[in-house]
């Protein structure tokens, strides 16, 4: 199962994303025998439990490492980033706060994108992530219309969004954004563990930032991308 997902995923983006993806790392491939000198799988996460990604915006510096790691991992066209950041200045000089948050698929429990997809290309996995069958997708944009967060992006008649690196999480590894983050800001784990960790962190943060909050426990019946915010979600216009 794992390898199939890996390969299908690989093909789905690289074949269809076409020239621009190829141009990024265009190179020679020869007929030499490929050998396996495996990178050790560092992580050993469950593959059949409800999982989640916890984004701690109080530690993130918007360095964009997650974005580019994701692009390479999923062989995306240069123009397509599955992770972006929404930001806002509040107040005026010198008492100005800069609020921002990761913007990517929230992996809603109640995934309205899935319900509205005319070709049933979207589905929920056992781990709780929302995934796309890239080959079935016709790029109609229904999901783009219905997503409460405005996440799906249509490019060359296909939809692009984060699928939590299915080829990695289904073999017990972390998504690429998590494993590259040098700011200690993104964690991957079982949903229950992450909720506990997040609640603790928010409690600590509230000592200095009374408005600190955890976003995602109730929205859309729960999100598998949980956000720790230094301020109220309303100030970020998350919904």
């Amino acid at each position: 199962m794992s390898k199939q997902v890996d390969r299908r995923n690989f093909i789905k983006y690289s074949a269809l994303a076409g020239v621009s993806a190829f141009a990024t790392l265009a190179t020679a491939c020869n007929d030499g025998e490929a050998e396996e000198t495996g990178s050790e799988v560092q992580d050993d996460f469950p593959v059949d439990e409800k999982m989640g990604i916890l984004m701690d915006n109080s530690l993130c510096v918007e360095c964009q490492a997650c974005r580019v790691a994701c692009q390479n991992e999923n062989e995306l066209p240069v123009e397509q980033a599955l992770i972006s950041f929404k930001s806002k200045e509040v107040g005026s000089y010198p008492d100005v706060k800069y609020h921002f948050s990761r913007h990517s698929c929230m992996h809603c429990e109640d995934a309205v994108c899935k319900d509205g997809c005319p070709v049933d290309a979207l589905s929920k996995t056992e781990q709780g992530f929302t995934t796309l069958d890239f080959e079935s997708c016709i790029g109609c944009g229904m999901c783009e219309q219905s997503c409460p967060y405005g996440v799906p992006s249509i490019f060359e008649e296909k939809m692009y969004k984060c699928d939590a690196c299915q080829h990695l999480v289904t073999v017990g590894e972390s998504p690429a954004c998590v494993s590259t983050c040098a700011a200690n800001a993104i964690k991957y784990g079982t949903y229950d563990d992450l909720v506990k960790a997040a609640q603790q962190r928010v409690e600590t943060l509230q000592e200095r930032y009374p408005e600190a909050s955890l976003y995602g426990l109730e929205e859309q019946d729960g999100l598998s991308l949980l956000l720790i915010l230094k301020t109220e979600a309303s100030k970020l216009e998350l919904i």
Partner: protein
Amino acid sequence: MSITRRSFIKGSAVAAGALGLSLTGLDFKGWAAKAQESEVKVKPSLCNTCSSHCGMWIHVKNDRPWKVTGHEDNMRSQGKLCARAHAGLYWIYDSDRIKQPLKRVGEEEFESISWEQAISEIAEKLNDILEESGPEAAAYGHNPRETGVFYGNRLMHALGISTVCTHNASCNTARTLGFNHTMGGVPHADLSNSNYVVLIGRNLGGGIRTSELIEFTEGVKEGAKVVCVDPRQNDSAKIADEWIPIRPGTDLALVLAMCQVIVEEDLYDKEFIDNYTLDFDKFAETLPQYTPEWAAEITDIEADKIRSLARELAENKPNCLVHPSWKGAFGSNYENSTETARAVAYINALLGNVNQPGGLFFSYNSPEIGSLDTLDPEEPQTPRTDGVGVEGEFPLATSHGLPHVIAEKAAEGIVKSIFIRHHNPVRNFPDYEHMVAGYKNLDLLVVFETHMSETAILADYILPECSFAEREEVVEARGGADRGSVSIRTEAVPKVHPETKSFDEIIVLLAEELGIEEYFDFTLDEVNKARLEPLDISLAELKEKGSISMELPEPSNEVEFSTDSGKFEFYSEDFARYGFSGIAGWKEPAVGYKTANNEFKVIHGKQAYHSQTVSANIPQLAQITKDYDSNRIWMNRAKAEELGINDGDKIKLTSPIATKEVKVKVTERVHPDTLYMPAGYGNKTPYYETAQKIDSLNPNDLTPYQTESIAGHAMMQEVIVKAEKA
């Protein structure tokens, strides 16, 4: 064949196509289908997008580098990588790479030649110059990392050439000089264990060294209070407790006033001062004038704020720090930068934080590297042509040298030959015209490069290196708290362009032709085996693993400084000897600290996803710039309103040397006297097509050629511009 920019690009495109065609029929689907059958090979390397050399694994699928992941056993990466590392893979197969030795045959016009011709012509010209004008007429400039130091410096020393320069005079030489002459070196900031951190201009979230960002965010998570002092709200300030905007170039006044408060209110560590420092009294005598009220007028920070900051910091002693920084505010920016560095060293001494958890550490170890038993050239005694160590010029400047002064000497015809490797002084020092005039006037400019940088396009000969992923290099050792690592670059992918060579290969060829081959009678493997010998690690094992980490002795709390006296020195005999102030005190920036209504100081600083101007040509990074419209200059909203300027407008900036236009970002996050320009834009080379799409202002086009009086650095931010709507 004569090569101009047009034919170079056309040639590349053809070559890339040919490369593709020779594979699986240039059919991407076919390639992808084939790729699904193949497993992934993983090869160790060291990143090359900035100079931190993070350890990484290059994942190769069907002989095509697919992605990189951070190497767990490398002190710099610790398993993590930044955006630049991921995107830097692009360079390996970039069609804009230099593929064969080039000789200049006209204005920015090149002819491809054989290695034999290149090496013999370069050797002949260099020998003529050395014979006619002596070794003072030649210089070498590079970004100093192990391979460039070992092979490059060795070649220069064998030829009697003493003028070896690095990029540091545009980076951190003032910081280094100031710390050397107080603490005897630059300590490591123990960010992950600190209770209170003051960052003056150091943007850990933008000028990223991966290991430092890891430590910093660990510290934040553990509850350290972080205060960012910077004219703009930088990336570190996003996760800090407080941002204190300051007028550019006045950090020295702030630090002196904080010292004044700490001493006057008896908040300093007396035991530390008594036991480990010299001449505290001389320093204390100077302090009464530096009241918070005095500093408030200069810095634009309220006196009460300065007082409370000093008190809070001192309450947390010794587990607190004022960051020694890097380039930031006082690495090479202002006439007072060296004095600012000394003052930052002073305040840390008052906190007694040396070798204390959460303070500054000198006792971090590095794995002990061996050396090859071979004939070493003597270090030449020839006076340096850039004036470093020369009385009457820059007697105290560090051995990193002064590439901007070299440009002047070249324009005067005193310097006739420069070798440049992995370094782009022409673009990355102030005053492009000044740098071009100098480098153009050389009889022999040889550039070792992978790409046609602004310095390369002026070269007489360009010698193409293979990319970082295609070459082995000299073993590197890095230290840390109680761990260290040794690392090596390996040939992760086969050479893409057969006519490229690694730096060590090129230097050995040159040495043979120059008749000094006796200094190079060894292989790279022999150098590396000798370096690893004391560590009981075989070269074969290191090549397989890339980086190996090892336990080192726990850092000790013993306080010992590498100064002449072995103590922290408030008063510098060396400074006094050469007519500088023995005790660091207030000194204005060269252009003053105040600006008129429509005038601004221009500051710059890194974005986390660009590395000087070298990365603007990487499509994934350029796309980030496009998506966030982030190559605009920041202007304070109230000031913009006064001047009738709106967000997104083009503005015209007039400096003493140029008038430039740039798009503006109107924001509350910058001091009203300040314009902040993100660094990394404004390439001048016509060969970087992607970079041209995100072209913008490079502050080096506004700042004149200047030298600071003590460290001799380039005073990167000593400029005032007039701004108006374009």
